[in-house]
């Protein structure tokens, strides 16, 4: 009995691309991988590109006049073109490769801390974030606030897991230099209303940073349509390798803002007395970059584009709708976050009566079902809703209704066990 939902992808074909999905765990139980918000699995197409790189072209990039160096440079810079196309960047030079989304966000925070006016975050200025941020979009701003004397403010949350923007004009003020928020929450699943926030930020002349870590893998992303100044995301959640992240930034800003990490590749000329910096993106890519990983991310972008981001979004929407409906049938289950599939991504957090998420996760694991438990690097959300932690199931392009069913059955077992 397989459930048919409108908009589903041909998961039977897609799953063949992902070697790990064939794996069994705990003495032959089929792996049901529902931890995609933590990291996605990698298709054969990406692994092949990595292998081909290391087996045929591996070399350091730039500055080389030999074949391998030219290959590696062309592949690395080609990956930048692919990523630029994927997010509809006006220019490839606006795409900076980092090691992960966290570095991307820290990079912005540090640029603004060391910037000249009018960008400089300093005593007397304000930084705005939200209560549903991932720690990677909280701590860099806390550090910046501590180190500069700026004030950190944030939007609270409504009971149903959405941003409370009712006081937007008090939160974002003339003093605000930067507003940084998550596009899709990794814990609540909420898709945030970009336009309203951007409009207010632009009114007061604040820069807008969008953490798209949970959006880039799952929906079409158009940095021009978002009208943000910076957009950060991470490769490993979108079928790419670990060790690669992206920061997109508007060209004028990248030209004006100071560098962050110093070193090889980011300079124009160096003497012992002083240095000048290369134009962006190189100015922000100190040292040997994650070459193979950027190339792998390029292959991931090709893979996702081949399937179509709209199609992936539709698939996940259908799965999420089904999952929300089925989960709400489980007694004592409380979804933390929006309880419909509207304006939400495919990560669903919940509590199950008094049973601690660690125990939920462990008993699910014994059945081969991989979910994540804990505060999902968003502890303020747990504090806000008065819970120690949640269990989170998160879906991706290869997830099936049968896996939702397995989860629901698994939760029944959890309840029986601890009941």
């Amino acid at each position: 009995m397989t459930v048919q939902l409108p908009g589903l992808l041909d998961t039977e074909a897609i799953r063949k691309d992902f070697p790990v999905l064939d794996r069994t765990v705990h003495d032959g139980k089929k792996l049901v991988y529902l931890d995609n918000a933590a990291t996605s699995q990698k298709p054969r197409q990406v692994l092949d590109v990595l292998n081909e790189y290391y087996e045929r072209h591996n070399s350091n990039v730039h500055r080389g006049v030999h074949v391998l160096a030219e290959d590696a440079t062309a592949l690395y810079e080609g990956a930048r073109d692919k990523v630029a196309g994927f997010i509809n960047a006006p220019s490839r030079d606006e795409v900076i490769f980092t090691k992960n989304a966290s570095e991307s966000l820290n990079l912005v925070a540090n640029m603004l801390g060391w910037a000249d006016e009018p960008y400089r975050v300093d005593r007397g200025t304000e930084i705005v974030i939200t209560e549903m941020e991932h720690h990677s979009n909280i701590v860099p701003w806390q550090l910046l606030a501590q180190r500069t004397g700026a004030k950190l403010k944030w939007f609270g949350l409504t009971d149903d897991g959405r941003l409370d923007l009712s006081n937007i004009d008090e939160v974002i003020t003339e003093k605000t230099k930067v507003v940084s928020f998550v596009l899709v929450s990794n814990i609540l699943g909420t898709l945030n209303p970009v336009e309203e926030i951007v409009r207010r930020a632009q009114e007061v002349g604040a820069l807008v940073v969008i953490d798209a870590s949970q959006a880039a893998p799952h929906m079409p992303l158009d940095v021009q349509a978002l009208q943000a100044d910076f957009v950060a995301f991470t490769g490993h959640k979108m079928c790419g390798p670990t060790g690669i992240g992206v920061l997109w930034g508007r060209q004028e800003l990248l030209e004006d803002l100071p560098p962050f990490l110093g070193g090889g590749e980011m300079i124009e000329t160096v003497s012992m007395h002083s240095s000048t910096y290369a134009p962006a993106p190189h100015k922000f890519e100190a040292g040997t970059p994650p070459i193979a990983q950027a190339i792998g991310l390029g292959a991931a972008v090709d893979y996702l584009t081949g399937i179509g981001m709209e199609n992936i979004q539709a698939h996940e929407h259908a799965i999420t709708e089904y999952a929300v409906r089925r989960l709400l049938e489980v007694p004592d289950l409380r979804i933390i976050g929006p309880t419909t599939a509207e304006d939400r991504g495919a990560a669903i957090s919940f509590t199950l009566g008094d049973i601690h998420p660690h125990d939920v996760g462990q008993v699910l694991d014994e059945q081969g079902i991989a979910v994540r438990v804990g505060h999902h690097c968003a502890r303020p959300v747990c504090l806000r809703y008065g819970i120690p932690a949640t269990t989170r199931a998160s879906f991706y392009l290869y997830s099936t209704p049968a896996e939702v069913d397995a989860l629901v059955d698994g939760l029944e077992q959890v309840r029986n066990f601890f009941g």
Partner: protein
Amino acid sequence: MYQDVILDHYKHPQGRGLRDGDAEVHHVNPTCGDEITLRVKLDGETIEDVSYEGQGCSISQASASVLFELLVGKELADARKVQELFLELMQSKGQLEPDDAMEEVLEDAVAFAGVSKYPARVKCALLSWMAWKDATAQALSGDGAKETA
């Protein structure tokens, strides 16, 4: 890993609730948010009481309950031996098969042997034990007194 003994202690925790003590500590397991507040009351070299309050998973809750049963009434020196043996068991990565000698010392706590195979859960099982060690040190140094009075 969920031995009946563990589930039993989880569902019917022993000694739970905060009572009078010579020292109090609050420990947190940052990886999962498990928390415990634990007090130790000593009578000379004897452990008169261990009382605690907290939230967490079945493993951390059951472990605190087992600790209460095992340590209260013991001489400090003996209690330390129990604590050390439990630590050794939990760090054994499932390699240590409890024998009779061990069972004699650890009693119900040998049920946690299976937990040692799960690195993410070892910290849960050790939470109350580390808190106890810390609280005892404070009680002995006299530091803790002012905190609980």
